[in-house]
């Protein structure tokens, strides 16, 4: 039946502007802080730790409780008494509650929640909460933390092929330390929760701009001691960006939920920017040492990686997943078969990490591609040529660590990038610039972009033997419901919780083709309601899964409804269902004219299904709705530490041309080319939006963005005046191109593409800067003018 939909090809693939836009452009968005889902909610202000690490000697909330308009206060002790620590994907030496109990472990950690009639009063009263702290020495250095057994969360080693032999036979070994500091996608809208505890039913309803439900609904429910059925999470129609960061909202579902439960009133909380920067969530900081073994002719023989992930103060689910997200693609775009990975995860006194655009990808490709650049330099082979020599060329390709690259044209992308950038002319320009004493560099990054994560990959954190005991985890599934009402109105519900990616428009395109209608007639909701929406434990917006499984589920459900429409139409027209074709809002008898006796409108068919069950073909259920689920294939649980960690693997080749100003250290990107193979593009306009938006995030991370702490743990980037996002004048005009090698594994041939440039840009620009400065060692990120200036002629 999938072929039927694919064959229609009407709306899929068109650069259709979004149906979502109109409401947003009119200021009619419905974001969490705009909603009043329950009457009379009280307002919370959170008292937070100013210290990175301190013991709480004494907490006195009496003055706050006595203040005007105050409903009550929830303390860390209440949280401990009323809930259990959050579970993560590995056991943690430090229990993680929604508020600090006797020790604060990062700046901004919640200590108490003050609830009052309005936010102003809540903040007044919060200022009256007295906390006596005994500051403790903060741990901020992940490399030092590995020696502390209380900080080391997990340690595993992986061996594929024979890395020892590869290194023993190498002609050239290069490598270095590549550290990727924690940063954030920084959604413009912060977290928000409205929590309503129903004491009679023992049910918590939480409206929140969560990007789940994902596995984290269950984590929050378990922490609250509630069966999953008693935690109803509802996301608003609109969410002001996330990029992974809003997966951390679940912590506040628990915290604000507990406040509602304790105080017996609905409670709402909207995070402010200071809270967000200090304590919402960051990407995972990575300290990596990498070595590459090369033959003299440029063949990459083996790779060794020693990676330490800094997950911050607590292990927040789904961490330590960042370490394993790339596991199927550890060898990137290259054919190398010998690989060793040592993977350690530590706690420090930073904000907890978890999902952030690229999730493990930027952190992996900075060292891997940096190693390739260093190899090229040492071997005196052009870096694009070195990549080309080592590219995977035959598909399907199974990586040493178990990943499956089902289809692709890596070499074609690379050729296209070379042409698009005018590579030879750029090299000539570099020669001229260097002769003139200018610091001009070219950097390359080749990136395999995994999408649709295997729910089982996180279990790699456990040793093979202990993994056997648990319920096996695999796959990635999504649900969708398609309904046609008696008047012929088409509604679709998926649980992919977008934050601006345009899922509604793409689903409308897909459904329109399958039903033969105009997409403007298809109303789509992609927000989640964990009690009443179709969803699975994988549902949510992450790992660029939408175009595969979100679309897959919508398509499956639509096909069921379309099948029913055809059956009814066949019955009416005296033909078989498979002789019926749906197009232009009408069911046609195939091969006949468009006369009244050979067509019947969708509207009429819908009317029959609802109004006249007696007139339906025998055995057909009345009504016109279907719920269907779609699971991505090729995602088995890990075996022998090998895993297909993602269904699909797109490909990105970037070429960056930069110049560093000798006098100021200022970095200028002269040209940037990014060529993608994300399979079939369902909507090229939205695809380009993802590529350019992802570019800006990668560019921010490599040039300026990072969470910075002083030696005493003080957070130095706690406002938007200190945490600097790129502005339009900073961002180079990236030139893009797409090749479309269809995926054989997703229903419409699409591969995810929301994260590729966030993975590739830091590596490409870092490599270009190393080249410009003639460095044969990595440079610490971010590449600020001050840092580069110090390295000039160093």
């Amino acid at each position, binding site marked *: 039946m999938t072929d039927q939909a694919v064959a229609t090809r009407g709306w899929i693939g068109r650069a259709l502007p979004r149906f979502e836009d109109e409401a947003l452009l009119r*200021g009619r968005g419905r974001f969490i802080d705009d909603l009043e889902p329950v009457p009379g909610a009280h307002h919370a202000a959170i008292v937070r730790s100013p210290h990175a690490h301190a013991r709480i000697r004494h907490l006195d909330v009496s003055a706050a409780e006595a203040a005007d308009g105050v409903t009550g206060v929830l303390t860390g002790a209440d949280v401990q008494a009323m809930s259990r620590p959050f579970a993560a994907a590995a056991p943690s030496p430090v229990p993680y509650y929604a508020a600090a109990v006797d020790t604060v472990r990062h700046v901004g950690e919640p200590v108490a929640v003050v609830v009052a009639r309005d936010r102003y009063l809540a903040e007044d009263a919060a200022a009256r909460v007295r906390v006596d702290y005994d500051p403790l020495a903060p741990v901020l250095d992940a490399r030092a933390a590995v020696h502390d057994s209380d900080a080391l969360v997990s340690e595993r080693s992986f061996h594929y092929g024979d890395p020892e032999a590869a290194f023993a036979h190498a002609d050239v070994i290069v490598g270095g330390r590549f550290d990727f500091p924690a940063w954030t996608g920084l959604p*413009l809208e912060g977290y928000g929760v409205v929590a309503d505890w129903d004491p009679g039913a023992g049910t918590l309803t939480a409206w929140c701009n969560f990007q789940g439900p994902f596995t984290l609904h269950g984590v929050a429910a378990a922490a609250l001691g509630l069966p999953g059925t008693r935690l109803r999470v509802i996301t608003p129609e*609109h969410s002001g960006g996330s990029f992974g960061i809003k997966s951390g909202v679940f912590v506040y579902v628990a915290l604000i939920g507990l406040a509602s439960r304790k105080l017996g009133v609905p409670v709402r909380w909207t995070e402010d920017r200071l809270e967000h920067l200090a304590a919402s969530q960051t990407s995972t900081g990575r300290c990596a040492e990498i070595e590459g073994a090369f033959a003299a002719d440029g063949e990459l023989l083996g790779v060794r990686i020693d990676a330490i992930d800094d997950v911050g103060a607590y292990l927040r689910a789904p961490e330590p997943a960042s370490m394993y997200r790339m596991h199927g693609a550890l060898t990137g775009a290259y054919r190398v078969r010998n690989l060793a990975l040592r993977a350690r995860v530590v706690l420090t006194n930073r904000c907890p990490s978890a999902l952030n655009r690229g999730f493990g990808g930027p952190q992996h490709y900075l060292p891997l591609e940096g190693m390739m650049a260093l190899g090229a330099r040492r071997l005196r082979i052009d870096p694009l040529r070195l990549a080309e020599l080592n590219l995977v060329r035959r598909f399907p390709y199974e990586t040493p660590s178990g990943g499956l690259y089902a289809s692709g044209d890596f070499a074609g992308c690379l050729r296209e990038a070379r042409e698009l950038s005018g590579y030879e002319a750029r090299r000539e320009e570099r020669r001229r610039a260097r002769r003139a004493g200018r610091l001009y560099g070219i950097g390359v990054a080749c990136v395999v972009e995994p999408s649709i994560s295997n729910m089982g990959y996180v279990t790699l954190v456990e040793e093979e033997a202990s993994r056997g005991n648990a319920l096996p985890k695999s796959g990635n599934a999504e649900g969708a419901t398609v309904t046609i009402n008696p008047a012929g109105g088409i509604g679709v519900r998926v649980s992919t919780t977008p934050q601006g990616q345009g899922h509604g428009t793409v689903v409308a395109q897909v459904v329109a083709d399958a039903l033969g209608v105009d997409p403007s007639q298809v109303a789509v909701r992609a927000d989640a309601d964990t009690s009443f929406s179709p969803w699975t434990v994988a549902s949510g917006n992450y790992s660029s899964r939408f175009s595969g499984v979100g679309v897959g589920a919508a398509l499956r459900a639509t096909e069921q409804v379309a099948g029913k429409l055809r059956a009814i139409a066949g019955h009416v027209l005296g033909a078989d269902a498979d002789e019926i074709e749906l197009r232009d809002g009408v069911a046609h008898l195939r091969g006949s004219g468009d006369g009244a006796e050979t067509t019947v409108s969708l509207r009429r068919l819908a009317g029959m299904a609802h109004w006249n069950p007696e007139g339906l073909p025998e055995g057909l259920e009345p009504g016109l709705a279907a719920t269907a689920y779609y699971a991505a294939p090729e995602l088995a649980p890990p075996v022998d530490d090998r895993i297909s960690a993602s269904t699909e693997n797109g490909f990105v080749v970037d070429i960056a041309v930069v110049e560093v100003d000798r006098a100021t250290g200022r970095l200028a990107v002269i040209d940037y080319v990014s060529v993608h193979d994300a399979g079939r593009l369902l909507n090229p306009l939205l695809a380009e939006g993802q590529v350019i938006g992802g570019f800006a995030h990668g560019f921010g991370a490599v040039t300026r963005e990072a969470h910075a702490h002083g030696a005493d743990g003080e957070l130095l980037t706690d406002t938007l005046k200190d945490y600097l996002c790129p502005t339009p004048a900073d961002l180079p005009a990236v030139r893009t191109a797409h090749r479309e090698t269809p995926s054989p594994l997703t229903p419409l041939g699409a591969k995810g593409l929301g994260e590729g440039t966030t993975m590739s840009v830091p590596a490409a620009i870092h490599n270009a800067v190393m080249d410009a400065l003639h460095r044969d060692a990595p440079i610490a990120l971010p590449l600020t003018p001050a840092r580069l200036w110090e390295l000039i002629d160093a």
Partner: protein
Amino acid sequence: MAEGAPMAEGAPMVERPISIVVEVNGLRRREHVMPRLLLSDFLRHRLGLTGTHVGCEHGVCGACTVRVDGIPARACLMFAVQTDGCAIETVEGLAGTGELTPLQRALHEAHGLQCGFCTPGILIAAGDLLERRPGADRAEIEALLSGHVCRCTGYRPIVDAIERVARDAAGHTARGDHADDADDADANGDPGGPGDPGDPGEAA
């Protein structure tokens, strides 16, 4: 009691609601507000005009930009009482119940919004720029947007959309009309009105 009424004890002074009259998107409103009520909270939660978004509450992100007496202002850096007697324009007033404006349409066509959280502030600020300088060039547009955080789009489609409207406008006026008044606003293309981030005196 009005939102924002502080406790008496320990507060510097007992504050009482003040009566203000404002005209919002053409409608006259009389309201009693506490002196410390932010304009952003007043618009969003008193008047229900939730199209004005709050992204930082410290004057950097631009999401809360509205026009006060025709001048762009950051609603998070102003108190509602400061607008007594003023006319305020918010995103809801741009198209009203009618067709989208050319700028709104251009953003739609260029995919200049994803989550849409930055969009209202950008619509107000860019609309103001195009009113003052109908043929604004790319550099001016980029300078204007340097005061608006957009984390989704990478800005390019936003700049493209505004530039397209500017070019269309320039097509309707004689070329060069605006070529030499580039210095009449400050370098940011921002007139530095009330609530301007450069004016710390307005910060609460």
